[in-house]
């Protein structure tokens, strides 16, 4: 068994653009769930809208900054549309509405009526919207090797995407750290514990929940942009499973912590890669075929999530004391 190759594959996942995108999406979800207690089951919808907004406006010839603003704008509108009717109701309603709304975004995006705009179910090809982003790279074309990792400087799956993706993750962490330790974050935590108590203290709970929903959604849309940089915009690859992986990552790392989502994303993708590559080496094809091993990896993910929620609900970085308190 070629352990160096397996290990370098696994290590590559730690810094992959996809890992950064999921970390970013989980940070956004952390604003919703970890800080405010909002049950958003439509994070993939925010990501897909961000990806569409960015790709479509770039294809229309808009510059990079404008395309990013469009991506952000889409998620703000989406958050408002979701929040206005539901944030005054009990938390479960938001969960139902968000999961449905994310599906609506995906199904509308893949409908043939919008073929000219979204490319329907085949989506938007990567090279149709990546140019402005790659032009911004300060590196010359070619490939660079750092340690065991060799990637192109500027192409799809490149160092440039990794650098920008992880810089965004870092910025988002900084933002969350600042907000978590501010009076604003304190109000959100109060809302997570008991809305009525916070209301009785003179805070506009609805307004705070809306701010949290929008902020988390904006971070989610940026995650969507990072996610589609090394690939194409494929509506069907950004459906419900994506939302649940983001949830798994958040719970794995620890909700309401600053670095939980980042650690969660790294562990999630590295572990998945490890299971798959080791499985391919060890399990003979008479027992499981390659594509079955792929499925098997996801089964392990599901079981892990169950075990996690049962035995370590606070995640890896969460404060056990905080969760151990009986909420009455």
């Amino acid at each position, binding site marked *: 068994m070629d352990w160096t190759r397996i290990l370098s594959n696994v290590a590559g996942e730690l810094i992959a653009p996809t890992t950064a995108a999921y970390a970013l999406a989980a940070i956004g979800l952390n604003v919703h769930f970890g800080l405010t207690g909002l049950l958003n089951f439509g994070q993939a919808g925010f990501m897909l809208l961000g990806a569409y907004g960015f790709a479509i406006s770039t294809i229309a010839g808009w510059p990079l900054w404008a395309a990013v603003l469009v991506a952000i704008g889409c998620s703000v509108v989406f958050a408002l549309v979701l929040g206005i009717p539901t944030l005054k109701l009990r938390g479960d309603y938001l969960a139902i509405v968000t999961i449905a709304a994310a599906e609506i975004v995906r199904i509308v995006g893949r409908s043939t009526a919008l073929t000219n705009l979204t490319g329907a179910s085949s989506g938007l090809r990567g090279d149709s919207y990546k140019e402005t982003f790659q032009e911004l790279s300060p590196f010359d074309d070619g490939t660079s090797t750092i340690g065991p990792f060799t990637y192109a400087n500027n192409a799809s799956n490149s160092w440039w995407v990794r650098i920008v993706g992880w810089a965004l993750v870092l910025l988002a962490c900084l933002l969350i750290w600042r907000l978590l330790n501010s009076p*604003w974050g304190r109000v959100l*935590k109060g809302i997570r514990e008991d809305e009525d108590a916070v209301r*009785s203290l003179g805070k506009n709970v609805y307004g705070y929940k809306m701010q949290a929903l929008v*902020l988390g959604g904006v971070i989610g849309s940026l995650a969507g942009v990072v996610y589609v940089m090394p690939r194409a915009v494929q509506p069907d690859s950004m459906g419900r499973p994506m939302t649940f992986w983001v949830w798994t990552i958040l719970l794995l790392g620890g909700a309401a912590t600053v670095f939980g989502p980042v650690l969660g994303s790294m562990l999630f993708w590295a572990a998945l890669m490890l299971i798959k590559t080791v499985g391919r080496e060890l399990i003979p094809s008479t027992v499981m075929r390659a594509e079955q091993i792929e499925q098997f990896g996801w089964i392990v993910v599901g079981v892990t999530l169950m075990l996690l929620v049962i035995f370590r609900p606070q995640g890896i970085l969460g404060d056990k*004391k905080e969760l151990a308190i009986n*909420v009455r």
Partner: protein
Amino acid sequence: MSAETTSTLAGVSQEPGAAKPDPILVADDVTRRFGGMTAVDVGHLEVQRGAITALIGPNGAGKTTLFNLLTGFDQPNSGRWTFEGRQLAGVPAAKVSRAGMVRTFQLTKALSRMTVMENMRLGASDQPGERLLQALVPPLWKPREREITAKAEELLERFKLLEKKDDFAGSLSGGQRKLLEMARALMSDPTMVMLDEPMAGVNPALTQSLLGHIQGLRDGGTTVLFVEHDMHMVRHISDWVAVMAEGRLVAEGPPGGVMANPAVVDAYLGAHHDTDLGDDSLLSDEVAEQLEAEAEAEAEARSHGQAEGPQTDEGDR
């Protein structure tokens, strides 16, 4: 009972809806129906400024519903009320609170997974850092945060919770949570506090200190309206008592006199005619001292238990 407020209320007629010399809260024709059931139907109610008014009545009399309506946590089917001359009907709860009328809850709403200190800080008003963009720039809110913290420490000291300030609120006893909730409500210097059953589930020693705090509030100029079942408490500390039954205001008067009112005896006491509701002897100094001693011993035993608790906890972390 302070002599001053008693004398200002001395001339007030003892009938439901009586006019007060200086009302802070005036409510008219407030009704709330749940399906076919009329939970609240109050024709006229005035609450005297700077006094402790008790709202009593049997279970299901609509006391808490009236509380929820007045504080904006529920919407009435009809009615209007003013607080310090300002119309408050239909105003959302957060704005009612900012107007200076802060409430507590029957089932205590301590924010369990936040520390006692964070609970207190949340009660403060005018913290610029509670705005999203300002929160990003600490110099804009740190000075106010220091003021808030100082004030919170002062209040916690007064309510004997200071040594608990870094504990999670969820680890406090029921009575301590009541104290915390009341202290938190005071962070914004309200002109009126609305206490929904402040004594429920509180042990006798804490009851004594809670009573003291409520009287202290009144003496500091804050108006207090509270819902209570325990008649000893009502007699002991309130300046005025309003009695509700089946959603209506059936009697009003000073605590001594209102118990003798036939309407109260009829509506409120019902079958328990012979129960001694206002036995002041229970609150004589002797008994109070004994209760306090007992509770102190209990509190000490608890603090020992708690000191050991977390250590064993530490072991498996």
